[in-house]
């Protein structure tokens, strides 16, 4: 009997270990933003902000606050040394042109064909897709960051998305608070599980076909 407790930090911490030194990354709003807090000190990634710069830094304090520097969520931020600003066409040229190594995005539903729905719930929430469709389509690797279960206790990983898609077949990696999955040949492939979850328990509690990778192992958070 496994007792599940939602844990977003596991997700952020695991994703933060995916990047290599020198990677260019775009982190979506919400949970993906947390990832930035856990990147190892010897791994220097460059964060893109799709409203027009590379080299996103931390939140400002009183001394370095600039109202004209905000992240893609409109929240004040800073830039790091080596940053540069550009217009929205260059910004999405970077995105759509395949120049970003990773984009990390949130999830409403993600399915085993690599389809992601994360931008609207018809009749309920129609905010617009912002940059999400371009990010999914353009980034070299798409990582989905999500707690495993929705508020009704059902897995957000599904056989086939029922919500309007943000992009079709673009998802490469999914990290939940139970484990890390790849999307391959129409299945979720479990690569790692996070204790106390076990592969079997994950398979039982996910609405989708999961293949357990022969090299599947426990990832230990240290």
């Amino acid at each position, binding site marked *: 009997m496994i007792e599940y407790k939602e844990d977003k930090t596991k997700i952020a911490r695991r994703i933060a270990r995916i990047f290599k030194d020198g990677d260019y990354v775009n982190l979506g709003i919400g949970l993906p933003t947390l990832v930035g807090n856990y990147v190892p000190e010897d791994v220097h990634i460059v964060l893109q902000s799709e409203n027009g710069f590379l080299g996103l830094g931390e939140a400002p304090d009183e001394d370095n606050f600039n109202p*004209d520097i905000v992240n893609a969520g409109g929240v004040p931020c800073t830039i790091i040394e080596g940053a540069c600003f550009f217009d929205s066409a260059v910004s999405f040229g970077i995105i759509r042109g395949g120049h970003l190594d990773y984009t990390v995005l949130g999830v409403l539903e993600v399915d085993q064909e690599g389809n992601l729905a994360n931008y609207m719930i018809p009749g309920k929430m129609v905010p617009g897709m*912002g940059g999400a469709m*371009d990010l999914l389509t353009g980034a070299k690797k798409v990582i989905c960051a999500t707690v495993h279960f929705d508020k009704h206790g059902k897995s957000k990983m599904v056989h086939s998305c029922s919500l309007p898609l943000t992009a079709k077949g673009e998802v490469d990696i999914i990290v939940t608070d139970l484990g890390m999955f790849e999307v391959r040949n129409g299945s979720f492939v479990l690569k790692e599980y996070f204790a106390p979850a076990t592969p079997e328990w994950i398979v039982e509690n996910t609405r989708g076909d999961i293949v357990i990778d022969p090299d599947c192992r426990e990832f230990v958070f240290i």
Partner: protein
Amino acid sequence: MKEKPIITAEEAIARIKDGDTLMVSGFMGVGTPLGLMKALGESGRKDMTLICSDNGLFLGDESAATGVAPNVLKKQFKKYIASHIGLNKETQRQMLSGEAEVELVPQGTLAERIRSGGTGLGGFLTPTGVGTAVQEGKQVITVEGKDYLLELPLKSDYTLIRAAKADKAGNLTYSASARNFAPLMAMAGETVIVEADEIVEIGTLDPETVVTPGIFVHYIVQRGEA
């Protein structure tokens, strides 16, 4: 080099007519030409189409509305073309009640459609939106085995943007992430009005670091207090 007219925000807005299509720079209020938008709000102009990255922030408190949100609250637009309207409850309300039409466009596609309009292209092929609701009603063109949507250009009757510095020939620089859509919208406007934080003499901007060439600019307004 001939100087561009320097006029007031009210003089600039007086040129706009009911029903015109406007492009307005800014991303969540950062880079919005607030003096021009204030004058637009006071003008009573209506039935316009607004092309803007988003609709600013309005979550219920009018005094906290940012970016173009005060103009949305004044119901000056019959149509919005934007990539994100989720932080403006009034736009959502107008959309659901049918008072205004909303065309949601992926942000990169929006940027490129504006650039296409400004650079004389008839459109472009993008992979963004293939297999999604964005594809509806659009021509799908296959190039080397890959599907793309044909997206069409956008132009405006008036483009209203904020710049950091404008020299009197209309050459512009921007401030940090306030740049966003402004250089693109400057290309796509039949008439382009710039609200500049600072207006400087011709010859004081470095020719290497001008972002928007003066050829795109028609009028300059000094930024006031918003």
